[in-house]
């Protein structure tokens, strides 16, 4: 008769074994005094650990923690930091370009708008081609493609709200810049 493994006994005491394992173990215990003794030793150790007294906590503990919180401040909302960071970087970039080139902020914005339009005019056809390739790939891959799409869907749902907020704000800022740049270009065209 093979005696019980100690780790099985621990899991049994913790209620971590499934029904079949539990019955098998109990059947062995019925027939094996040595394992019964060992199990009782383990049970005693568990009870002794569970019986360790809790640490005393001063009655004013919570008040002390609250007194250390920043006065009058709320916890920062999760989306605030990325939005502030993104906006700061954008403004710093505009200001830096203005100082370096000596051009007015409006001109810098126009240049930026042109760059963005130039980038989009290059990127969009490429993006469309990539989509077409992806479509063909998905068609060829069949079931595998479906699985990949499902995984991507899951990934999107897992994106943290801060990241989503950041992406949305960035998109709004870029749209604004593009519109502003187009408007400026049109007005320059009218003047000339």
């Amino acid at each position, binding site marked *: 008769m093979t*005696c019980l493994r*100690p*780790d099985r006994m*621990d*899991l049994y005491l913790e209620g*971590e074994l499934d029904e079949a394992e539990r019955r098998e173990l109990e059947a062995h215990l019925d027939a094996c005094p*040595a*394992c019964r*003794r*060992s199990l*009782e*030793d383990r049970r*005693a*150790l*568990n*009870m*002794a*650990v*569970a*019986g*360790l*007294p*809790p*640490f*005393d*906590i*001063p009655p004013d*503990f*919570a*008040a*002390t*923690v*609250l007194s*250390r*919180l920043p006065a009058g401040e*709320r*916890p*920062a*909302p*999760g989306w605030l930091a990325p939005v502030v960071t993104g906006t700061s970087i954008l403004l710093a970039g505009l200001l830096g370009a203005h100082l370096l080139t000596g051009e007015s902020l409006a001109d810098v914005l126009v240049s930026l708008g042109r760059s963005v339009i130039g980038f989009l005019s290059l990127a969009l056809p490429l993006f469309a081609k990539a989509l077409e390739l992806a479509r063909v790939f998905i068609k060829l891959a069949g079931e595998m493609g479906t699985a990949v799409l499902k995984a991507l869907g899951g990934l999107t749902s897992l994106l943290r709200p*801060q990241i989503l907020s950041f992406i949305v704000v960035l998109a709004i800022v870029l749209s604004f810049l593009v519109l502003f740049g187009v408007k400026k270009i049109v007005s320059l065209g009218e003047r000339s």
Partner: protein
Amino acid sequence: MNDDSRLVRKALKGDRKAFEMIILRYQQPLVNYLGRLTGERETALDFAQDIFLKAYASLASYRPSFKFSTWLFKIASNHMIDHWRKKKITAVSLDRPFDDDDGSPRIQVEDREPSVARKYELAEVRARIERALERIPEGLRELFVLRHVNEFSYEEIADIKGLPVGTVKNRVFQAKEMLRRQWEETP
């Protein structure tokens, strides 16, 4: 939405009473965890304050789909890891297997010893357990405390520590075997 999530939402709107409720709810398990790991009540209380402050500062990152206790203890666990690192204690790395799958010698378990609990009074047994606990490597001790003092499930511990459930079970078992040995050796 559970009660913890509601309290968090209120705290995020600036309701300090709600955060106080969170503190009152979790101060005891948190201090027990920290106390069993540091072995010092005062240090545990100081750390618990720091951890609640950290939790408050990053409250917005809490996702209601997870258990608040797990999230809070994740912060506490990272705090302890930083503490051990700063103290340059030889902490057993949680990235390194504890003899569970690397072929190195396992703890030899003797299961036929007479019951210690039968020999000693409960108070003395407790004192010996506390002394024995202090002699277990931090990494293993932490897992043992999370399981047997804080009574987290293995799945919750796996979530807190970012380890597979099987690894957590194995290490908690090893910690318990070490504790048994230390218990028998500690005067």
